[in-house]
């Protein structure tokens, strides 16, 4: 079966004054329908630039992005806009990703105004359905973002991504700013949505533990390059690279005895 | 760091050129004909044409400008149409009083404004409201009203200070007139800036290290709050170039402002051109000074 998304030898370079910064260098991976690709890396690894390139927000210097067999590396602005219905992002900060002055209903309706010609009544039905999918109710439509908690706002951000009925959702540190118990709720929601709707996720995180929980395949990035990539289970049990091993060793285990035993290996 | 300075200097050159070109073009486009101004209404068309050719006015505008600029570079700003005096000596002869007013006002405004701003930024409360009110009043009350009011009270009511003339005592009232609004503007900026800075995480960290509050305020917070304040002081100097026109008229100070107004009333274009050029140079120097101060105050600016 063809992968839904194929990224091939992707490179992104930024031109600074007199110098050139290679933010992403020769990155390749594939995302199959209904599966999750986890991209893990520390700050400066280029993972955010990579998602920008996939979403068409960052100009690509070389390589290819192929979506459903179509080369969208240099898609026209018009085609790009059509594609946004298929490729939806969810960002880290649930407090700044919603316009504080607009109601939830207005925010969720926007993608439908752009991508469809549905009448107002049908739009409302779609929006209500999306809210219910994320565990909120249609009654919340006329409320403003400030009336919701961080976890609820992240649910709303996910609902906004769902309204357009995308096939791929890019989750950029989508659970990183959340408290532990809320993080668990959102991860549960994402996993359930994937099972129910057959969604494909590109899951970007600095947290290897989160990636391990949700990803079928994992790409480890460092300084713009892929350190290693493969099935998640393999990468977390027997990493091929020194860097991945160091990442794994640096993660903490919520168990004092186990952690004390591991500590000896961390330099 | 040297690159930043070069960049700033590179901004000053087009600024000077643009200002001089604007004033030159405006003057050239003006409906009046210098030949008519000089010869009067009664001359023959041939006489006018001869004079225009003699003055170089029959050439294309850009050539005329280039010619003017070339002379300016050699220190020759032309001659007044009215008094026939060289523009440069007219300007230099009147520069000192104007500069005294501007420098005096800047120093007084900065001292009072920064002191008030720090107090209200750190302590808030009543002094915060006082700064708010003062800045609004300083903004709204025109200089041409404050000046005469000060004259009525301090020169006519109780004759403490001279109402007019360019002496040291004579500078007190003009400077006070301008410094009320100047100090208010600086106080407001200092207050806002200090208040934001005192919220900073490093201020909390400094307190947690047990450093004396006064040291935190004056050494750390003030230094970091100073960049926007310096900007406002720089803008104030530019505004004072306008303000001095008013106070020189009120207090009969023989300065550049008075010269500008008189030349405007008499349509003495070369003289106005010269004054504009002189004022632009002041602005260029002030901006350059402000930019250099940024570099001293803010280490992050040094790498840009």
């Amino acid at each position, binding site marked *: 079966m063809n992968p839904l998304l194929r990224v091939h030898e992707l490179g992104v370079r930024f031109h600074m004054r007199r110098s050139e910064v290679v933010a992403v260098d020769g990155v390749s991976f594939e995302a199959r329908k209904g599966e999750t690709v986890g991209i893990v890396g520390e700050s400066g690894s280029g993972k955010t630039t990579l998602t920008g390139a996939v979403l068409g927000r960052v100009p690509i210097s070389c390589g290819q992005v192929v979506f459903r067999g179509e080369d969208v590396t240099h898609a026209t602005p018009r085609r790009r806009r059509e594609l946004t219905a298929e490729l939806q992002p969810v960002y880290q900060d649930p407090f700044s990703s919603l316009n504080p002055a607009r109601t939830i209903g207005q925010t969720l309706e926007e993608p439908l105004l752009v991508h469809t010609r549905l009448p107002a009544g049908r739009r409302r039905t779609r929006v209500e359905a999306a809210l219910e999918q994320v565990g909120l109710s249609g009654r919340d439509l006329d409320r403003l973002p400030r009336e919701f908690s961080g976890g609820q706002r992240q649910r709303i951000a996910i609902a906004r991504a769902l309204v357009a009925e995308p096939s791929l959702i890019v989750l950029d540190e989508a659970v990183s700013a959340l408290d532990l118990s809320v993080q668990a709720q959102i991860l549960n929601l994402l996993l359930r949505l994937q099972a129910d709707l057959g969604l494909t996720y590109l899951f970007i995180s600095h947290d290897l533990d989160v990636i391990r929980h949700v990803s079928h395949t994992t790409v480890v990035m460092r300084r713009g390059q892929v350190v290693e990539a493969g099935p998640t289970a393999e990468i977390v049990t027997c990493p091929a690279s020194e860097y991945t091993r160091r990442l794994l060793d640096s993660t903490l285990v919520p168990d004092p005895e186990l952690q004390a035993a591991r500590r000896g290996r961390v330099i | 760091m040297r690159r930043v300075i070069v960049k700033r200097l590179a901004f000053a050159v087009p600024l000077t050129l643009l200002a001089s070109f604007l004033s030159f073009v405006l003057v050239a486009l003006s409906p009046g004909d210098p030949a008519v101004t000089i010869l009067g209404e009664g001359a023959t068309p041939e006489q006018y044409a001869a004079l225009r050719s003699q003055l170089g006015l029959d050439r294309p505008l850009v050539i005329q400008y280039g010619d003017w600029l070339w002379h300016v570079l050699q220190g020759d700003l032309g001659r007044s149409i009215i008094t026939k005096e060289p523009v440069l000596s007219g300007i230099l002869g009147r520069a000192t009083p104007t500069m005294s007013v501007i420098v005096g006002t800047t120093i007084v405004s900065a001292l009072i404004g920064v002191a008030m701003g720090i107090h209200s930024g750190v302590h808030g409360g009543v002094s915060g409201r006082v700064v708010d009110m003062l800045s609004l009043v300083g903004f709204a009350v025109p200089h041409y009203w404050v000046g005469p009011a000060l004259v009525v009270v301090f020169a006519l009511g109780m004759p403490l200070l001279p109402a007019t003339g360019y002496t040291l005592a004579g500078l007190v009232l003009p400077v006070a007139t301008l410094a009320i609004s100047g100090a208010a503007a600086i106080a407001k900026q200092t207050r806002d800036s200090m208040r934001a800075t005192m919220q900073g995480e490093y201020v909390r960290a400094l307190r947690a290290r047990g450093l004396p509050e006064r040291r935190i305020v004056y050494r750390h917070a003030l230094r970091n709050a100073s960049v926007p304040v310096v900007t406002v002081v720089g803008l104030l100097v530019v505004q004072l170039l306008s303000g001095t026109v008013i106070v020189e008229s009120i207090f009969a100070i023989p300065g550049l402002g008075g010269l500008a107004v008189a030349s405007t009333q008499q349509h003495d274009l070369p003289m106005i051109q010269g004054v504009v050029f002189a004022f632009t140079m002041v602005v260029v120097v002030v*901006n350059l000074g402000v930019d250099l101060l940024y570099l001293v105050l803010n280490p992050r600016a040094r790498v840009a």
Partner: protein
Amino acid sequence: MRRLELLIPAAVLTLVVLAVLFAPLLAPHQPLEQNLDDVLGSPSAQHWFGTDSLGRDILSRILYGGRVSLSGAAIALAVFVALGVPLGLWAGFTSGPADRTITWLADLLLALPTVIILLVVLAVFKDNEVVTMVALGVTGSTSMIRVVRGATKAVRGQVFVVSAEGAGLNQWHILRRHVLPHVRGPITVQATFFAATAVLVETSLGFLGLGVQAPRPTWGNLVGESIQQIQPAPWFLLITGGVVALVALCVGLVGDAIRDMTATEPDLPSPSRPARARPGTASTSPSSGVLALENVTVCHGGVTPLVTDVSFALRAGEVVGLVGESGCGKSMTARAALGLLPDGVELVSGVVRVDGADVAALSSAARRRLLGRLIGYVPQDPVPSLDPSFTVGSQLAEVVATEPGLSRAEVRERCADLLRRVRVPDVPRVLASYPHQISGGMAQRVNIALAMALRPRILIADEPTTALDVTVQAEILDLLRTLAAEQDLAVLLVTHDWGVVADLCERAVVMYAGEVVEISPVATLFARPSHPYTRALLRADLRGSTPFSQLPTIPGVVPAAGAWAYGCRFADRCVLAADECRAAPVPLRSTPDGVARCVRSDELQKAEVR
């Protein structure tokens, strides 16, 4: 209150504008009607504002004069808005050459003194009022351009705009729906302030005898005339100047009111100060540990409790974790322990003891000496916690030099030594660096060195590794562990991460909804938690979970400060909750090796076994 601040000046303005507009109907006399028998007459029933040197009615002249001055200002304002708003939006919305050109031109224009430019225009166009006011609008528009551009850029950088773009909305839609509503406020504010400036500049020119010429009245030339008569008729100046000042003041007040109303950010709270000293005598209580909190309650604004009845103590050399989710009061507790509560937040009751002494009873100078010398503080965000204007070396030296009797060379050596102790690899380079030149991990080492500079016995670390990469986090945790062991430090570590607790802490204080719910040694805590919240939060941790499995969660959210239940504050979210939990506040009860605030601890232990 807010409404009145807008309504009163707006009403005054409207009155003035209407009076000026209907001058022909309202004016008691013709503006040019002379009466040489009644020159410089004082205000009277016939001439409310008196008469001028030619016996003309001043009130009528002001009403007619306003027509020139206000319409001039209106022209300038129209140009200001028409030029400034579109250019500002364009520059702010599109980055690149258009933005650079517009900004450059605006900077150039801003550098020219306005009145001088206007003098040139007046000289060239022979006192043409309209051209002059258009020129004023053009030169002034730079401030509008800058403000609109800045506001637009700020909105454009917001994640919600980026999200809207991600949703495929076109530029026009984003401009109209997302950007304009947010820049409308700054635009209105700028326009009002410029309106006042325009009136002031227009009248200044008139005052200088430029622009519209006498005998036709303008507010400016009326002031000019009144100054000539300042000695015989001072009220003349008072009235003419006063009208202009009143208009400018009212416009300014309207602008201020609009700014206050449209400000999107809440007003900054006033700066925080060390907690206020309460009267009392310093007392010492033995054996309570080097740092002890006894029944500490912290309130905001004197009414809303943020932290209630918190008690725990740290022994020398002990690392204690203060754990909980956001909104549980753990950071506020740490700041109470430091004595650095934000403004408006106060220690309402309870005692903080450092080395046995009641901190609140000390003088503020004595309290300050505790900080640094007895208590060190490691912040959450390493780089912003360093003063950006000073090098690392000078910030270290500042603290080190508070110890008396050190020579410069000794101070320098002590600073280098401190950095070596926190395992900074390239000490001379880091000493000479500014905070923005070093990495987050390096900055956190510097913060630790600063906290350790005066060899304190207590270290309070607020989420010290949350902002760092995992590999760096491991190094910093190792460093803290070594320092604590080597120097017998008591460490209070605020964290939300069970992994950090497991790695570093001996005991943990778990907080929920502003109160302590459990204190246990970590081995017990992880194996047999005594409070249902501790257990639920441990289970929500995905580390150790089966991949792709649904994680156990806690229903609902942490209640907001002050909205806490009367009985057990966790009862609404607790699987074990029963009627007895909600009946009354639950006290802390002893457990085999700690305390827990749960009436059903026994049930919990049984459930754990099952």
